[in-house]
């Protein structure tokens, strides 16, 4: 079987009741265009979200509808070709961050991002996925991390933290309540997170551990759209958590890791977990409400919060980061469209790993710039390390002099001394 046929078969397999219903309902009104930053910032009609699904739509029509079959019989239908899938690759990957804003905008209720995620399964099977994302996924499968970090890197951070804080960082501790998972970017670039959670959990008296064989939550398989690879990456965390018999796995500050661990995971491995998944921000807010997380001092800086797409629109975590910010940031202000309608940093859904997409990603950062210009802040707080890198990059390209910090680290900086 050639790769085209394999891709088409994979797409046919992806067509379930929601997808068929969504295509049936689409009246080509074009309203989804206004919800997508790739359209709003370029005004190029090819970036209209539903248009990115055109090959999948035709496959659905030809395979599942009377009309499509009739047209095929009359020789009036246009079969999907390999060249067409190649041409669609940049639309499906470079200009979609799986942010899900279109799914909120569609008047007939189509969950468009659900369809893009499914279409990527067919794109991968047909061999049409971006090289950058393929490389990241291969590194994740082969080396254990899309950014090529390994256990040695983590061990170095653990030793540094132990030296700096005088606290021990539990590793492979069986029977702990919580298992902390990190994102690739945290281990590679934002290692202060290790010290931050160590100090917070010490103060709050949280029983926790990390696992030497399942410490990374970043899931390139989800982003490239390969359920097989996503399951392989995820099962490392699942095996470690179940080996250590923890009650909870803590998803790191990484949007797609949260989606992978929290929502897609059990479906990828085909069974429910023997543990629950909680986002680090959800956990911190829970500790706050229980009075176990106490801060002291305030940061008077004018700051705002960038909602990661996978946490708000696709994750339902909206209030928790704000509750935490209000503990330490009296001058916290919301961006326009903050919360459920927040605009993507531009680098989600695998775009950040796709070098080819970089010029477009930088261009559409103008949307984030406009949001930031409207409020004039000095610091952006976020809860996704990928957003953090993308924000820093976008700010740099626009010569904007703003700090970008992770929420967990911000809280750790203001931690009250542990009660004796």
């Amino acid at each position: 079987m050639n790769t085209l046929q394999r891709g088409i078969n994979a797409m046919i397999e992806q067509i379930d009741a929601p997808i068929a219903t969504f295509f049936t309902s689409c009246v080509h009104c074009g309203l989804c265009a206004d919800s997508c930053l790739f359209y709003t910032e370029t005004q190029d009609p090819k970036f209209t979200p539903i248009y990115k699904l055109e090959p999948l739509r035709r496959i659905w029509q030809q395979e599942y509808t009377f009309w499509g079959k009739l047209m095929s019989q009359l020789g009036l239908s246009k079969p999907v070709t390999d060249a067409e899938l190649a041409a669609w690759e940049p639309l499906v990957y470079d200009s979609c961050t799986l942010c899900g804003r279109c799914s909120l905008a569609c008047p007939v209720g189509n969950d468009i991002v659900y369809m893009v995620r499914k279409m990527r399964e067919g794109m991968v099977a047909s061999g049409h996925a971006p090289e950058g994302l393929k490389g990241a996924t291969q590194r994740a499968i082969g080396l254990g991390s899309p950014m090529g970090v390994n256990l040695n890197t983590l061990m170095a951070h653990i030793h540094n933290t132990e030296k700096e804080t005088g606290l021990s960082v539990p590793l492979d501790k069986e029977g702990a309540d919580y298992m902390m998972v990190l994102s690739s970017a945290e281990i590679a670039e934002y290692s202060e997170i290790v010290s931050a959670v160590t100090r917070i959990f010490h103060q709050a008296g949280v029983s926790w551990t990390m696992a030497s064989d399942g410490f990374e939550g970043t899931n390139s398989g989800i982003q490239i759209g390969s359920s097989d690879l996503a399951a392989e990456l995820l099962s490392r965390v699942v095996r470690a958590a179940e080996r250590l018999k923890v009650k909870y796995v803590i998803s790191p500050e990484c949007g797609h890791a949260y989606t992978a661990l929290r929502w897609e995971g059990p479906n990828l491995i085909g069974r429910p977990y023997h543990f629950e998944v909680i986002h680090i921000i959800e956990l911190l807010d829970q500790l706050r409400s229980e009075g176990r997380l106490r801060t002291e001092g305030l940061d008077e800086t004018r700051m705002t919060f960038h909602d990661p797409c996978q946490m708000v629109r696709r994750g339902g975590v909206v209030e928790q980061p704000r509750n935490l910010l209000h503990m330490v940031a009296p001058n916290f202000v919301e961006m326009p469209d903050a919360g459920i309608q927040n605009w993507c940093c531009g680098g989600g859904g695998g775009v950040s790993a796709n070098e080819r997409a970089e010029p477009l990603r930088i261009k559409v950062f103008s949307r984030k710039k406009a949001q930031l210009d409207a409020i004039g802040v000095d610091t952006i707080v976020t809860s996704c390390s990928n957003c953090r890198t993308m924000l820093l990059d976008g700010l740099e390209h626009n010569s904007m002099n703003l700090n970008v910090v992770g929420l967990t680290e911000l809280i750790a900086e203001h931690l009250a001394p542990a009660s004796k």
Partner: protein
Amino acid sequence: MNPQDLLYWVRGTGLQIAAAIFVLGMSYRMLHLVLLGRKKSLAIPRGSEWAYGLRIMWQRSFVLPELSARGKFTVVAGYIFHLGFLITLFFLSQHIDMLRAILKFGWPALPRSVIDIAAILSIAAMIALLVHRIIDPVKRLLSDFQDYLTWALTFLPLLTGFMLLRSIGFGYTTLLTLHILSVELLLIAIPFTKLAHMFSTFVSRWYNGASAGFRGVKA
């Protein structure tokens, strides 16, 4: 067949055939869609699929995100067309009489002047939407043959109905025959084209809302 006989057939057997195709075709299509099924998520839900799915089915008709000028035009013209179409369909006294004969119950009609305004606005909105579909780069790119076909099939009953009420162009028998024929064409086309969105939209919204509800997302 003389014009009277043709009208007799069209409003009798013809309408029955068209209505049967509509009812059976739509039932089949909707069942076919839903029976494709979807995998039940094994993740632990944070909220209710049903409650939020039902809410979005209703809410998405009214709550729309911030729109650009072209988006606003689509929404406003789209509302006028749909409302005008439904008002003329369900509140013109002749339509109610016909429906009463089938359903054995009726409801009060709206005054003719109101129906006239609704029909004119609906026709005007449809023409405006067609022009917009052709000149707007996004809509033009998305549109295919079916978009224009379904536009024409929806437009004809409105147009012939309006001509009939105002006695424009042809004699009563001819216009009535054309009007009913155009309705029959529309009824027959609905199950096989995107006109099926008249029902599937609500299922789409449910799936969308259910997925959000499951994750505890409150839009």
